[in-house]
């Protein structure tokens, strides 16, 4: 069969699908901003036209005014600092406990079998409901928020690590043993590093959990932090400040995620296999 005939047959049998219009990256960015502007404009116009009651939906101009005030007075940075330290403390403590618990339960079949139903039960429980108890126990200060963040982070890390420990490459283990590693050295040289790589792989989820724990804890009762700002605004029916708090929270969460991505690249890019 000649190339001309085969070409025409193919063309007849399978008509080419129309080419999809693929916009460039800058076009996409412009469109994305346009969407945001349209939503904000609609919000503003609908509010001014009294279609959306201002008492419940606020006014975007006042929301940004509120954010500006917080920023200009520097107040927001104090609250951000509090929320951030609760998040980081909650993450660090939760991750360390999770690694220890995960390695222990992963390595000891007896402990694993014994605690399995309890671990499952606690994991099934929506753990934010621990918040009120932690506030009773630890008061309105930073500790109750850290405790809530820890309880959320712990399980993410714990499950990843105990799974990771059970699935450590048996060849790497046998190799380390043949090279003379004692039980302790095996833990330090094989189990912990491979557990840590699992912690890294769940970094986004677990830091996100710590953030949720901190903010929810603040919202349940506190004296500072972004959750506290929202709580305070809510109790004075200041809907604009509630929205402002939400915007700050979202932007902060995005920045946190970005920071993790950067740390991740620095720390594990070269080791990833």
């Amino acid at each position: 069969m000649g190339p001309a005939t085969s070409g025409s047959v193919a063309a007849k049998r399978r008509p080419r699908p129309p080419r999809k219009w693929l916009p460039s990256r800058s076009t996409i960015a412009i469109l994305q901003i346009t969407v945001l502007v349209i939503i904000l404009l609609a919000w503003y116009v609908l509010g001014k036209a009294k279609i959306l009651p201002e008492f419940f939906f606020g006014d975007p101009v006042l929301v940004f005014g509120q954010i500006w005030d917080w920023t200009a007075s520097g107040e927001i940075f104090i609250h951000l600092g509090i929320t951030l330290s609760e998040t980081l403390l909650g993450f660090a403590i939760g991750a360390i406990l999770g690694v220890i618990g995960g390695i222990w339960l992963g390595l000891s079949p007896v402990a694993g079998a014994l605690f399995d139903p309890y671990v499952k039960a606690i994991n099934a429980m929506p753990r934010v409901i621990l918040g009120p108890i932690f506030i009773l126990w630890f008061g309105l200060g930073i500790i109750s928020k850290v405790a809530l963040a820890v309880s959320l982070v712990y399980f993410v890390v714990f499950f990843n690590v105990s799974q990771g420990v059970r699935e450590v490459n048996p060849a790497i283990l046998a190799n380390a043993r043949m090279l003379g590693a004692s039980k302790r050295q095996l833990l330090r040289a094989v189990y912990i590093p491979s557990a840590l790589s699992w912690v890294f792989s769940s970094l986004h989820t677990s830091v996100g959990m710590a953030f949720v724990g901190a903010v929810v804890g603040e919202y349940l009762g506190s004296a500072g932090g972004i959750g506290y700002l929202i709580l305070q605004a809510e109790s004075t029916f200041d809907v604009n400040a509630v929205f402002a708090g939400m915007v700050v929270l979202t932007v902060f969460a995005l920045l946190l995620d970005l920071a993790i991505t950067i740390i991740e690249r620095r720390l594990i890019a070269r080791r990833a296999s």
Partner: protein
Amino acid sequence: MTRTLELKNITVRFGGYVAVQNTGIAVAEGEFVSIVGPTGCGKSTLLNVAAGLLEPTEGEISVFGEPLVGLNSAAGYLFQVDALMPWRTALGNVTAGLEFHNVPREIARQRGTEWLTRVGLSGRGNLYPHELSGGMRKRVALAQTLIMNPKIILMDEPFSALDIQTRVLMENELLNLWTADRKSVLFITHDLDEAISLSDKVIILSAGPGTRPIAEFNIDLPRPRDVYEIRSTPRFIELHMQIWDRLKEEVLKAYERNQYGTGN
């Protein structure tokens, strides 16, 4: 000659499946012994037994005349699969064994660097395993095992994943390292050419189940050898034909068993 490593009447069962039956293998001091056999016949199983990683269902292992209990600490083991620690650099992997034996850090680093040079990887010590090629990783694994100066070296198809050229290169390197101070080597391979060109003795295993040695050939080729050049000498070709005749039957048996599913 004294026997460095001896497996006596080894039987290994996995559940109801008899992988290895009544097998005896001996390696003398400074001897290079290869085991050849069809795939799945139990070669890795035997090596794990020799390393003390797998307890045989029946039989005894003796190392320098002493019965083996637990891991074989006189042996270094080069695994069939990749067993480097991905979170350690090449140098960190090479020095791992020294670290486990509490050798001071500086000395370990120095000896590790020497060994990396010896396997042709000088200046690559800072790379992580996934930044190395397959052949380079095998060299790191080789250095990792040999730096411990084991009296017995167990190698499980160490070069089977490499291309022919790299393979010949590594085989020559191995022979050079081995000639420098003669260890006892138990070497597993699929490749008859490799077995003959490296070894003093080639052992043929029968097809599974119930694998056992069925023939043993002394390789009287002169040393030092060049693994590539030696393959065209008349004596090599003669040995190859003899051994292949014997091996062929087993390979066919194994193939038929797999074909008709009576293997298990």
